[in-house]
């Protein structure tokens, strides 16, 4: 009798504990807003990174041998610059990454450089479908307008930014832009309808976006962007409906202080 009771007890305990409830996903209501911001800031990052390369190429081309070695040691550890008939080539990881085409100094007002981005070079995991040409135009002292129209496998992007370069940072071009930058302008990202989803992200910078990676390397809780405000809209270009309510995204030095304000639609 005792044994039967013991058996019943064990079976009852297992039966009662057999149903399990495991934790669900993070219910973050701002998830789509954060993702849209990530895509928009990625466009900003690509442009200032390209501009950093262009500034370095320009500086390198006007430097003597001793100074070139210093530039290579400080900013071009795994990157090589190669002079060609039409300009300079940037080789990273054994692959041709960019070709800069321009005869006038980059810092001269009115000077326009063309950047050919090699389609075999994968920038930020998004592969270009063909070689793409972007332009960098000097519009003032340490100020450039960068225009890009690129077709990637997953999306197309149209970008026009006014960028002001600031102090030189202690960084390697391979992994980061090497100047502080202040960025204004707008961009649009149209996702590939078949590969991803028919969504379009329109971003307009309302308050200049400041890149300062010093904070990033000194404190991993921080962002590489310390100031700025963007207006972002995500729409379904097939139905014309909002994917998420339009919002303003305010960048802050600490991730915890980032602010998202959804706009009321009448």
């Amino acid at each position, binding site marked *: 009798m005792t*044994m*039967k009771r*013991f*058996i*019943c007890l*064990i*079976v009852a*305990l*297992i*039966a009662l*504990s*057999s*149903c*399990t*409830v*495991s*934790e*669900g*996903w*993070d*219910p*973050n*209501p701002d*998830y*789509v807003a*954060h*993702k*849209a911001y*990530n*895509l928009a*800031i*990625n466009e900003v990052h690509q442009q200032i990174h390209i501009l950093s390369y262009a500034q370095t190429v320009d500086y390198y081309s006007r430097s003597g041998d001793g100074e070139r070695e210093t530039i290579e040691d400080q900013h071009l550890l795994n990157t090589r610059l190669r002079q060609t008939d039409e300009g300079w080539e940037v080789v990273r990881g054994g692959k041709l990454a960019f070709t800069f085409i321009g005869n006038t100094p980059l810092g001269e007002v009115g000077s326009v450089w063309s950047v050919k981005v090699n389609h075999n070079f994968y920038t*930020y*995991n*998004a592969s270009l479908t063909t070689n793409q040409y972007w332009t960098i135009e000097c519009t003032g002292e340490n100020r450039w307008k960068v225009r890009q129209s690129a077709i990637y496998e*997953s*999306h197309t992007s149209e970008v026009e930014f006014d960028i002001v370069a600031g102090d030189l940072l202690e960084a390697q071009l391979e992994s980061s832009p090497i100047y502080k930058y202040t960025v204004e302008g707008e961009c649009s990202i149209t*996702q590939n309808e078949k590969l*991803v*989803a028919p*969504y379009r*992200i329109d971003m307009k910078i309302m308050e200049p976006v400041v890149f300062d990676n010093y904070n990033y390397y000194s404190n991993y809780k921080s962002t590489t962007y310390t100031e700025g405000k963007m207006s972002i809209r*995500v729409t379904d270009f097939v139905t014309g409906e909002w*994917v*998420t*309510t339009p919002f303003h995204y305010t960048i802050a030095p600490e991730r915890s202080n980032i602010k998202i304000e959804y706009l009321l639609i009448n």
Partner: protein
Amino acid sequence: MKRTILTAIALLIGVAASAQSDKYRNSFDFSLKNGTNNKHEVRLTVGSAPLFEDDFFVYDYFEPNITEHHEMIHPNDLYYRGALKTSGGYALSYMYSPCRWFSVGMYAGYVGQWQKIHLRSTQAAVSTSTERHLMFVPTVRFTYLNRPMVRLYSSIGIGVGFCRERTRNVDGRLEFSENSRFCPAEVTFLGVSVGRRLFGFAELNVGSLGCCSAGIGYKF
């Protein structure tokens, strides 16, 4: 094809073990009290925390990572999955013991899972996803302690399973439906059964019925 071969191997082991057994020994008599040769056995098993192939490889509904800067926006990003409720594993099994140390048989098992899907913007539940797994698993068991009242054993089994997945919205309309097959497997590292004809058992295992299981059985 693999499953057929494995089943055949399990059955052949059973036949081989049967051929080695001594029909005239009393050791067959698991229930000396009743004086019968209890070669047959049925069990009702309840398991906790079942594991499926998905748990070992890639889970279909992998939670997206917000820190990934280059990910495009997908329709699934508008939703999130709530807590996953799992029923536990329930199985009815039959085992045949051609000799004292070896048994062969099969279990039919069931596991149900439920998960609500919520719209991120409003947090409201918009649909419910259910997965029902039915599986048939041929099993072999090796008993290394065989006393009239207590037995210690290990077992292993692999079989075929069918999964029916349905997603219905709050109005009950079917949004998604899929039937698929999977390969359930069960390894019992240590099992203990206590009792004579009617017995209870508890097992430490890993597989499609759970990570630990218990139940009652009857020998005849």
